[in-house]
C-alpha cells in the first residue's frame, strides 16, 4: 500500500509538468501581452506609452525567450516560488496561500452539504421507488443536473437584491474570526453550487441503493425479520456508499470549475476569482499558478478517493497490484 502511494505521488510530477507546459503554451498563443494589460487596465483608461511598455516588459521578464521563461518558472515551482503576479507585484505563492483556503472552504462545504442532502434524498427515493414522491424528487434532481451553475448563482444573488435588498457582506471573514459573517458569505454560493452536486450524488445513491437492495444478503436480512431501519443502516447503505464515494472524487474537478464561477458572481476572493481576473488581465503567472494548483488539488483528491475506496473495500488491495 505504501509503495502504491509513493508510486502515485511520483506520477504527479510528469502530469504536473504536462499541465504546466500546456497552460504555459496556451497563455502565449496570441499576442496582446501582460505589459499592455498592466498599464491599460480592464477599463482601458490606463495610458500606454512606448517607453513605459518597454520598461514594463523588461520589469516583468517578458523579453526573455519562451523556453527560458518556462524553465525559470518550473524551476521556481520546485522551490515553491510561483513567480510574481504581473499586475499586483505580489508573489503568487502569497496569493495562493491567502486564497486557497477560501476556495477549499467553499468546495468542501459544498461537498458536505451536497452529500448530506443527497444521500438521504437518494436513499428515500430508492426505498419508495416509483411512488409520486419518488418522481417528484427525480424530476427536481434531473433539473439540478442540467441547470448551469452561473444561472443558479445569478438568480440567487439577484433575487437577494430584489426581494430582500440585501447581499452578503463584502470581503471574506475567516470562520474563526467571525463565523456569522463567514457563514453569510459562504452559504449562498455553497448552496447554489451544491444543487448540481446534490443532483449527481442523489442519482447515484438512488441507483446504487436500488442495486444493493436487490442483493441476496439484504433479502436475507428481510427474511430474518430485521427491522427496516436496521437493514438499511447497517447493510444496504454502507455498501451503496462505495460508488458514491468514487463519484464525489470524480466530481471534484467539476466542483472546482463551479467555484470559479460562484466566486466571480458572489465576489469571494478565492482562487477561482484570481484565475478569472488573471485571465482578463493576462497575468500569466497568476493563471499558471492557479491552474497548477488546481491540477495538484485534483490529483490529490483522486488519490485520496482511491485510497478511501481501498480502505472501505478490503477486496481491493493496491499493495499487490
Amino acid at each position, binding site marked *: 500500500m505504501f509503495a502504491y502511494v509513493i508510486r502515485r505521488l511520483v506520477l504527479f510530477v510528469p502530469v504536473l509538468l504536462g499541465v504546466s507546459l500546456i497552460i504555459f503554451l496556451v497563455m*502565449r498563443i496570441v499576442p496582446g501581452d501582460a505589459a499592455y494589460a498592466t498599464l491599460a487596465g480592464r477599463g482601458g483608461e490606463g495610458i500606454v506609452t512606448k517607453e513605459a511598455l518597454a520598461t514594463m516588459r523588461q520589469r516583468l521578464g517578458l523579453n526573455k525567450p519562451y523556453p527560458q521563461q518556462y524553465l525559470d518558472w518550473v524551476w521556481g515551482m520546485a522551490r515553491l516560488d510561483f513567480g510574481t503576479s504581473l499586475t499586483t507585484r505580489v508573489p503568487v505563492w502569497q496569493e495562493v496561500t491567502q486564497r486557497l483556503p477560501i476556495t477549499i472552504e467553499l468546495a468542501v462545504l459544498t461537498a458536505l452539504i451536497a452529500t448530506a442532502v443527497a444521500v438521504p434524498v437518494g436513499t428515500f427515493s430508492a426505498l419508495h421507488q416509483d411512488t409520486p414522491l419518488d418522481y417528484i424528487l427525480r424530476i427536481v434532481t434531473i433539473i439540478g443536473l*442540467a441547470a448551469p451553475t452561473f444561472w443558479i448563482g445569478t*438568480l440567487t444573488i439577484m433575487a437577494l437584491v430584489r426581494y430582500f435588498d440585501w447581499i452578503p457582506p463584502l470581503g471574506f471573514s475567516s470562520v474563526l474570526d467571525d463565523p456569522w459573517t463567514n457563514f453569510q458569505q459562504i452559504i449562498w454560493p455553497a448552496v447554489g453550487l451544491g444543487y448540481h452536486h446534490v443532483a449527481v450524488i442523489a442519482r447515484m445513491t438512488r441507483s446504487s441503493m436500488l442495486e444493493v437492495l436487490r442483493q441476496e444478503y439484504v433479502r436475507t436480512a428481510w427474511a430474518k425479520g430485521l427491522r427496516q431501519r436496521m437493514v438499511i443502516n447497517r447493510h444496504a447503505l454502507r455498501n451503496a456508499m462505495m460508488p458514491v464515494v468514487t463519484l464525489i472524487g470524480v466530481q471534484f474537478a467539476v466542483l472546482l470549475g463551479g467555484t470559479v464561477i460562484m466566486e*466571480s458572481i458572489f465576489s469571494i476572493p478565492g482562487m477561482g476569482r484570481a484565475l478569472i481576473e488573471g485571465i482578463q488581465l493576462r497575468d500569466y503567472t497568476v493563471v499558471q499558478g492557479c491552474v497548477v494548483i488546481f491540477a495538484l488539488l485534483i*490529483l490529490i483528491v483522486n488519490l485520496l478517493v482511491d485510497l478511501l475506496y481501498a480502505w472501505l473495500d478490503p477486496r481491493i488491495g493496491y499493495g499487490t497490484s
Partner: protein
Amino acid sequence: MQSEQMSLLSKSSPPVLLMRWARVIVRFARAKPLAAVGALIIVAALVAAIFAPIIVLSDPLKVDTSRILVPPGRDAPLGTDFLGRDVLSRIIYGARISLYVAVSSIAISLTAGALLGGVGAYFGSRIDMPIQRVMDAMMAFPSLVLALALMASLGPNLNNVVAAIAIVYTPRTARIIRSAVLAVKANQYTEAARAVGCSHVRILWRHIAPNCVAPAIVIATVNLGVAISIEGSLSFIGVGVPPPTPSWGNMVAGAAIEMAQKAPYLPLFPGIALTLTVLGFNLLGDALRDMLDPRLRTR
C-alpha cells in the same frame, strides 16, 4: 396469410411506413418515457435551430428603443430585453448557436478522441504511452478552467469556442474509446485476424470500430449536453460567444441587473432554455447507455 401481409407491408407505401414508424416510436416512448421526453426536447431544439429565421417574431439583433423591457405579453411572449429585442426570438437563435457549438465541438472531439485513443490502444504501448500522458495532463484541468484559458488566448469568437470545447473533451472521449478498444483487443480474434493476414486497417474497420460505436454514441450524447453548458458558462463570463450574437449564456449575463430591478423574469428564460436542452441530452444519453452498454453506468 403471413406472406400476404408481409408483401403488403413490403410494398411500403407512405402511410404504411408512417404507421410502422409511429408504432415503433410509441413503443419506445412507453418503454422509456424519460428518454422520449429527452428526445422530444432535442427535436424541438433542432427544429428551432434549423428553422430559426422562419419562426422568429422579430430580428434578434435589431435594437428597438421604443419597447425596452416590455413584460411578457401579446407582442413579445417572453418580453423584450434592455435594448428592445424580443427575448423569444433571441432564445430561438440561441438554440442555433448552442447546437452548432455542441455538435461541431463534440464531432471534432469524437474524431480526434477516436484517433488518439483508438489508434493508440490498438498499436500498443509505444505509441499509446506518450499519448496517454498528454491526455492525462489535459484531464487534470477542470474542463471549465482549460476552456477558459483557451478562450482567453484565442479570443471570443464562435469558432474558437468550438475549438476550445473540442480540445477539452478530446481526452475524455479518447479514454472511453481506448478502454473499448482494449476490451476488444483482449479478445483473441484480433490476434487471430492478424495471424491470418488481415491488414491493420481492415481489422480496425471491421472488428474494432463496430465495438466502439456504442460507447461513442453514449459519450457523445452526454457530452453534447455538457458542451452546451460549458459554452453557456464561457459566454456568461465574457470569453465565449460575444454579444450581440444571442447565446443563452450571454443573455443571462446581460439580464442580471435588470432582474434586480425591473424585470425579474429576464434571466429566467434563457436559463430555462439551456437547462431544458441539457436535460434532453442527459435523458437521452441515460437511455442510450442503458440500452447499449450497461457497463458504462459509472459516469
